[in-house]
Each structure stands twice: as C-alpha cells, then as structure tokens.
C-alpha cells in the first residue's frame, strides 16, 4: 500500500470535502505543513493574554459584588458580573468555533490533526473558573507554532506556558532550600507533579529508564519556572533549589540558578532514545492503528534519532511507510474529529455556526461532545484522551454520536444535501455498498445523512 489522496485526507487530515481537493502527495502535505499557517490566519484564536483579560474582569466583578451594601446595588453588580461571565463564555465559544472552522475549511488538514495530537500529548487546562477557556490559548501559543518544528521546542514551549505551569502545579513549587523557602514565603516547597508527568507522559514514557530519584531531581531542577498574569512566563531564581541536580545521570546547573540549565535538560530529555520510541509509537497509534506495525514504529523512531527529533522528518517517515496506508479499518475518530469531519463533509459556511453565542454552541457542540465522552479540552487527567477504539464506541457514547449525526446537520444547514450525493462526498471512492444502499433507502434526508455519518465507514479513519 502507498499514498492515496482520499485516505490521506481521512486518516491524516480532517476528512473529505466537496469543495477542497485532498492532498496529492506526502510531499505536498509536508510542504503545506511547513509553510504558512493559513487556517489560523483565516480563523484566529488569541493568546493567553485574552484569557487573562477575562480573568481580570470576572474577578473584579465578583469582588465588586461581594462589596455591595444595598439591595439595589447588589442587583446592579450581579448583572454586571453576569455580563462579564457571559462575555468570557461567548469568547470561549468563538475560539472553539475557530478550531472547528479550521477543520471544516482548511487545505492543510494534517496540521489541524497534529495540533490536536500534541495538545493532547501535553494536556493542560483549567477545571473551571475565570480561566476556563485558557486551554485554547495555550494550544494556540505553545503547541500550534511548533508542530512542524523540533520536539525539544514543543517540550520547552509547553513546560514554560502559564496554563501548564498552573495545571501541573509547577508555579507553586519551590526548592526546599530556595531563597523563598528560607524567607518562609507562602509559596511552600517542592511539588513533583510536572517533573513526573514530563518523564512519564511527555518524554521517556512510563516504561522509560527513570527512577523516583530522577523525578525528584528533575522537580528540583524545574523550580523557578513560574509566571505572572500580566507578563506570562517568568523565571524566578528565588524559587530555585540551589546546587546541581542529576537527572538520568547527567548533572545540570551549579550554584546560581539559570534557566539555561533547565533548557539543557529539556534538550537531553527530548534527545533520549526512550523519548524517540515513545513519541514514534504514540504518533503511530494515534494516526494509524491501536496496534501499529512494529516496522513503522521502528522507522519513525530511527528518523527521530537521526534528525534529533525534527518532527516533519518523523511525520515523513510515517507517511512514507507502507503500513501507514494499510487497507485495514482505521482508528475510530475521536468526537472532535467526528464533528469536524462532519462539518467538512456538510460543506458548512462560517456563519452557520452561532460562534459567539455560548448557549447555542453548548447545545450544538459542547454538550454533545461531553456525551460522546470528550469534554472539549478537559480530559480526565494529564494522560489525555484514550487511544483505545473500544472506549469510544460504547453504547452510550455511540448513541450520542447517532443523535448528533441525525439532528445537527439539519440545524447547521436547513437545505440538507441529497443523501445519495452526500454518501459519495463523505466517503469518497470506498463507499461500502450497504451504506450507499442505506443512504438511498432512508425515509428522510435527515435520517439518510445521519446514517452515513454514523456508519463505521465514516466513523473510522
């Protein structure tokens, strides 16, 4: 098996579209990926400061509400608070709409898939509160610019972003002998959370050659990584544990705390053979199969090692490998992939989404995604979403996919396409005969579209 345009669009991109031709070669995919990010230009998402602006406004409004003395004043302040909270949610919805419109209308679908993959690999988010949509800004700032770069840069960008520093408690961590600890500042002491997940999830993998001592040493080395709401990432030497730390037998730093020493450790972790293997396997599992061909993983890991983790080279090794194009049933689309590729197949226009209206967006997207098992941007833990096909297709989750597929297309575009045409648009040359038959035999257009979108042929990549 070798490169196939439709399979490239479905397995490595955002699906088929009646408007946009699938890529015609692996080289074309990679050259788009390393070129201009046109989808981000067309459908922008702001950086962390936009999330901070909402945070500031919401906090101020809550504070003002607490300070009220009269009933009339309370009424007014309550209204003001609701207004800023609503503005925050509406903006969060706009950002989500942008990510979906990119999927629906991009010519560079591989990039959108990679952004989702790496954003999940480096999972970071806020559970709730006035920064609850900041994960979108994190993905935009720390992940998206680096998906076609070096893995080491991706690692550094994620580990120094405020959303990650908050999510894995790094910004609260201080060396036991740091200046801050000596002065008994409120900040506390060491916290291992980011160090552990960096070794276990982000770089070496849980089977990697590290010990509890390495976790501890890396946690000490990472002290000082911090941020401020105003300025974003900030290195605070006052939090840093003095002295050198030894991670995986390499010594970093000395008396004076320096950010360069932390970055040097990132470079070494990124370069480690266990990391090459872990990343190669994870990419192959995500894009190709829950049980990828070992030769494919080997080829990708070898390319990673040869190129010092230059990601486009690793992707090239995947796309060049026959196993990537095997005719097996592909992975199950995650719910965001399912919805994104549905929008693309339905050829929706940007104004079809009620982008800045949180209530409607929640009903059409956020709640259905939750019911499909993917609370957008908020997986259960730092290991991100499951790659196991069987976990996505349980009766409960499948029923949420059925309902969305049967009902939402009609809300998105009242003039539904003819299911007999739609089945060809959505599935391309490989339409299974029974799906073609079902599209023709359905009683209504909505059911016909719903059956096509629910079919395994569309649900798989």
């Amino acid at each position, binding site marked *: 098996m070798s490169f196939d345009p439709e399979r490239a669009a479905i397995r490595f991109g955002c699906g088929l579209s009646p408007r946009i031709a699938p890529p015609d070669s692996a080289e074309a995919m990679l050259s788009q990926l390393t070129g201009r990010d046109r989808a981000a230009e067309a459908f922008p998402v702001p950086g962390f400061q936009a999330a901070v602006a909402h945070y500031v406004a919401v906090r101020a409004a809550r504070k003002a509400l607490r300070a009220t003395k009269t009933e009339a004043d309370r009424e007014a302040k309550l209204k003001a608070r609701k207004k800023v909270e609503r503005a925050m949610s509406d903006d969060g919805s706009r950002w989500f709409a942008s990510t979906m419109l990119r999927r629906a209308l991009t010519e560079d679908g591989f990039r959108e898939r990679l952004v989702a993959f790496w954003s999940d690999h480096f999972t970071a988010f806020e559970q709730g509160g006035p920064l609850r949509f900041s994960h979108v800004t994190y993905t935009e700032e720390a992940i998206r610019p680096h998906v076609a770069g070096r893995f080491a840069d991706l690692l550094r960008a994620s580990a120094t972003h405020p959303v990650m520093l908050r999510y894995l*408690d790094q910004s*609260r*961590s201080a060396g*036991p002998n740091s200046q801050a*600890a000596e002065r008994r500042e409120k*900040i*506390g*002491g*060491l*916290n*291992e*959370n980011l160090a*552990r997940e960096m070794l*276990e999830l982000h770089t070496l993998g*849980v089977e990697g050659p590290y*010990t*509890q001592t390495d*976790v501890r040493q890396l946690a000490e080395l990472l002290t000082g990584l911090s941020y401020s709401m105003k300025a974003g990432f900030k290195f605070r030497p006052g939090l840093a544990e003095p002295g050198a730390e030894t991670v995986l037998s390499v010594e970093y730093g000395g008396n004076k705390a320096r950010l360069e020493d932390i970055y040097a450790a990132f470079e070494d972790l990124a370069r480690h053979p266990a990391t090459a293997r872990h990343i190669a396997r994870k990419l192959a599992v995500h894009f190709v199969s*829950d049980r990828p061909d070992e030769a494919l993983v080997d080829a990708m890991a070898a390319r990673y090692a040869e190129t010092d983790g230059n990601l486009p080279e690793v992707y090239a090794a995947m796309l060049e490998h026959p196993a990537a194009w095997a005719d097996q*049933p592909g992975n199950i689309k995650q719910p965001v992939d399912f919805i994104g590729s549905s929008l693309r197949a339905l050829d929706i226009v940007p104004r079809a989404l009620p982008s800045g209206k949180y209530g409607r967006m*929640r*009903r059409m997207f956020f*709640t*259905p995604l939750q*019911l499909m*098992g993917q609370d957008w941007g908020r997986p*259960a*833990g730092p290991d991100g979403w499951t790659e*196991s096909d*069987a*976990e996505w*297709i*349980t*009766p*409960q*989750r*499948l*029923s*949420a996919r*059925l*309902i969305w597929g*049967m*009902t*939402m297309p009609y*809300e998105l575009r009242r003039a539904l396409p003819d299911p007999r045409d739609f089945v060809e648009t959505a599935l391309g040359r490989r339409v*299974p005969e*029974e*799906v073609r038959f*079902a599209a023709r*035999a*359905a*009683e*209504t257009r909505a*059911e016909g579209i719903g*059956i096509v979108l*629910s*079919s*395994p042929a569309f*649900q*798989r990549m």
Partner: protein
Amino acid sequence: MTRQTLSRRLFLTRSAALGCSLAASPLMTPVTMASAPGENRLVVLILRGGLDGLDAVRPYGAPEFDSYRGRLLDTAVPGELDLDGFYALHPALAPLMPLWQAGELGFAHAVSTPYRDKRSHFDGQDILEAGTASLDRAPDRDGWLNRLLQGLPDAEAETAYAIGRSDMLLTRGKADVSNWSPDAALPLSPQAEKLLDMVMHDDPLFRDATAEAIALSQISLGLSADAVEGEDALDSSGMMGAMQDSMAGAGKKGGLDEIARFAAGRLREETRIAAWSVNGFDTHAAQSKRLPRALTDLSDTLLALREALGPVWEKTAVVAMTEFGRTARANGTGGTDHGTGGAMLFAGGALRGGRVVGDWPGLAEADLYDRRDLMPTRDVRAHAGWMMRQLFGLDTGLIERSVFPGVELGADPKLIL
C-alpha cells in the same frame, strides 16, 4: 468484552420498570452490576487519583506524624474522631462515625497493590482494576471483578448494568456486563433503525454497541415504553435540550448520591455486585481544602447506600480502594505527592467493623518505603480476596489462581460477620 446486547423491547420493558429515577441518574460515572447467587452483596468503589490514607485515617499516635504534616496539612484530631487511641478519622469523614460505632465501618492501613516505584496513576489504576501482580498492557486484559463473576457457579447474565459513558477495566472480561445510560433521546423511524443495523453489521465494534445505543437513545427522556413506541416525535431542539438538561443534572453535587441510590435499588433486587468510581483524590496542593471534598463524596455515597439499601444493608459489604497512597511528608504546596502504602475502607452491615486492621510499619524514616512513603505491609488484594471468600463462598484456590493471580491471601482478617 462480551457485551450483552438487549433487544429493544426487552430493554424498554426493563427501563420502564425502573421508572423516572433514571431520568435523573448522573451520567459521569459508570456503575456496573451483576447478579450472583446467595444473599450477600458486594459494592466496589474505586477511589481515583491516589487517596492519602495517612490523612483519611490519621495515625496520630505515631510520633513522626505531626512533624511530617503539621506545618502544611491540618492534623487536628478532635476527640470525637478518635478511632482507637492511635488512629483518628479525617474530619470530613465525621458523618461516618455512627457507622464505626455500630461496627459497620472499618479500615485496613498500610496496604497497597503490588504496583511499585513508578507511581503512575494510570498504571496504578490498571493494576488495581486488573487485580494482577504486575502490569499487563494487553488490550484484551480483563478486570478482577469480571473474573470473580466467572468464578461464581450460578452467576447470571441478567441484571448486569453499567451506567454512564464508559466502562471500567475492573468489570471488563468474558462474563456478561451490559452498558446503560439515560443520556440522550433519539426517536428513529423503524426504517432508520433497520438501516443503521445494516450499515453497522460488518464492524464488530459497532455491531455490538448499536442495538443498545439505539435503545438508549430512546429511553432517555424518561418516556415509558409505550410513549416511545407511539408517535411522540420530538423536534431536534427538544431532543438536544433534553441532552443538555441531563448533563446539567450530572454536574450537580448530588450526582454520586443519585448513583448510590440507583445502585441500591438494583441491589435490593437480583443484583449482587456493583462497582463504580469516586474521583478527585489527587491532592498535590491545598490538600486541606481539596481532600475534604472528595472524602465528603465518599461519605455521602456510603450514607446514601445505607439509607437506600434498607434491610439489605445488613447483607452488604462495601470496599473502597485506591491506586496508591501518598508521601508520608507533606510537599511544599500543602499537598502530598504520589506514594505507595495507603488505606482501604470497608463498610456495610455484613462487616465486622469498628477496627483498623493491618500491621503498622511505623513512620520513622528508616521504616518508610524508599524513605518517603508508608511501607505497605499487606496486599489490598488479600483483603478483597478474603471478603469474596466469605461473601460468596469462593474457593481460596480460585481466588489465588484466577481472581487475583499470585496473591498470598495470608491470615484471615475476618472482615465479614
């Protein structure tokens, strides 16, 4: 896994029998149940995130305890929370004191799964649910509760339910367990149903889930079987509105309480085993604020179970277990990091409670595991194994070979009356 596929008619009949409580059922946490012979009931709660056993059941009598934790964690032990002169209950568990006094609550301390050293949540939970001595990454691995079902001679497939949107490794395996969720509603024409069956047919993953998915889609509004069979078509916004309403319900604090009540309803009938998760125990920071929330969830769950089980509580044993304990010392941010030894909780009228069992290893630095964690002195599987032996008359050989391969059951802690 073998998923029991229910016919739509049968499904609707069963759901109608359960009435409206379903419509209010929380959706976030799967509950799995199975029937089994005999009168005894077992409820397994998985506490996810790594419960700090040293905080939940505080060994205040250990000389090191205060100094390890006093600066950053609340270690106060009001007299009324004293358990036995050495251990005391976390204040958030105070509502459980009447159970302790009635002999319906007990703990095992300094226990752990066989998992060591890497302290990963994900691997730790896998090993806890798989019940094995070491990590098995095979995609078709099964869970110990399912193997228990396989070992019960007259266990029946009926009345096996999972509620929520995902299943747990704990209950995965050959014995029949079906999934059920009241999340969503979809009135489909009979033709569409037939066509869906047809397009799903050649893909086993979809084929196995479709009939149930369709049935699920139609009961979620709390409609009776008749209403669904009739012409009560809803427009799509009404449908999605209902999805949203049920989600809003799931987010409320009452979620776990509702699950416990639903489970109790089933346990009062044929169901003998139920399992679900309580989350939120990963307290790296601000533990004094965060742990009480998770412990309150646990305590609410137990109290709701006791109340809703009524007389059946006397025949019920609940075991709550977690993937690992946490560090003996507080970390720098008022929390604790991933550790090893911890505590497990037992409750129920079938229990010989009012005791904290276990060999206390001490908290002196040299007594700690890796000089940082409470040293585990017993395998959680040994306690769970003895409970199953006593509740269901399971043969110890079967427990040691099949349910918990390689476990050393050791001396009987005599947890069951």
